[in-house]
């Protein structure tokens, strides 16, 4: 009897799920940061000078996406 897990390379499925799932959160997070930054600039154009601070938070959020990306090198069958 051939097990399904033997026939399919589960590591590839795992990597795909990891990338897909791991990128959702940071994607939403960076979208929120960018959207709120633009909203702030729209309300008050003086707020445009806070782009540097917005980018700092983008980098903080981005770390979790990169951790998901790095994890695909650890997963093997």
């Amino acid at each position, binding site marked *: 009897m051939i097990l399904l897990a033997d026939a399919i390379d589960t590591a590839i499925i795992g990597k795909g799920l990891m990338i897909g799932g791991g990128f959702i959160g940071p994607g939403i997070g960076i979208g929120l940061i960018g959207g709120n930054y633009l909203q702030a600039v729209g309300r008050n154009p003086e707020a445009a000078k806070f782009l540097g601070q917005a*980018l700092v938070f983008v*980098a*903080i959020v981005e*770390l979790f996406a990169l951790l998901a*990306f*790095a994890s695909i090198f650890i997963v093997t069958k």
Partner: protein
Amino acid sequence: MNLIATKFIAATGPVTHIAPSALFYFHGLTITNSMLYGWICIVFMIILFVWAAHRMTIKPKKGIIQIIEVIADFIINTIETAFEDKQRARKYVPYFVTLFFFLLFNNWSGLLPFANDAFTAHGAPLLRPLTGDLNATLAAAIVTMIYVYVSSIRESGSFRKYLSHFFVGSPLNPMYLVLGLLEMLSDFTRVISLSLRLFLNIAIGEIIVAVFAYLGHAIAPLSAVAFYLIDMFDGALQAFIFTILTIMYLAIVVNHVTAHDEHEDLTDGATPETMGVFPQNGEVA
């Protein structure tokens, strides 16, 4: 031309490197390719900045010196705005400006055509960027955080006063004790998050360039050039973020010190200053 071709066109699958590989051994020490390139960058930096420092004038010059001046001025301004006291901020300028330039040069070093797979020794690339190596970024984060802790303790006055910053009230109150200990624990994760952020951004940036060069096949330079430019932006951004985050970690403690009286006992459990808790009976804190 050949150098650029080996950078962009990967023949058999995307070639990726995560770990540094040993080049040679020196008295029991392993010299890796990232260390070698790091030293080359450091020597280049020293020569460039000594050369630039001898040519600095009050009236700005054109060219490379002006660019260095503008970047250094930008970092100095960032440090001075982070601290409430400019005189206090001036003390920390040399370390953080050096840190920024060190990271910037090492981040960009991996984008040069002779880096990575252009030259190989024993099947491993001869030169890899220093910040694309977790050992190097971890060392940078540890050294920087030790500097931040030592400076924080010196600014606070004593070790006991430094520890008292973690507690909003008296540590004898079990809730404040747990909150303070959690705060201390999250303080130690900064080393890990700083080093991982820098390493992953640089290493994965190179992997993505390699992957898109592989996908592009015959038109590899065209498909990879967009990610190459993103890498350039990202290298500068990560150097800035490493610097600004460590400045903020230091500024939080320093600004906390200046916000209080010198002789005020912060461990006094009577009035917590933060968390929206206000004293009862309408008395003014």
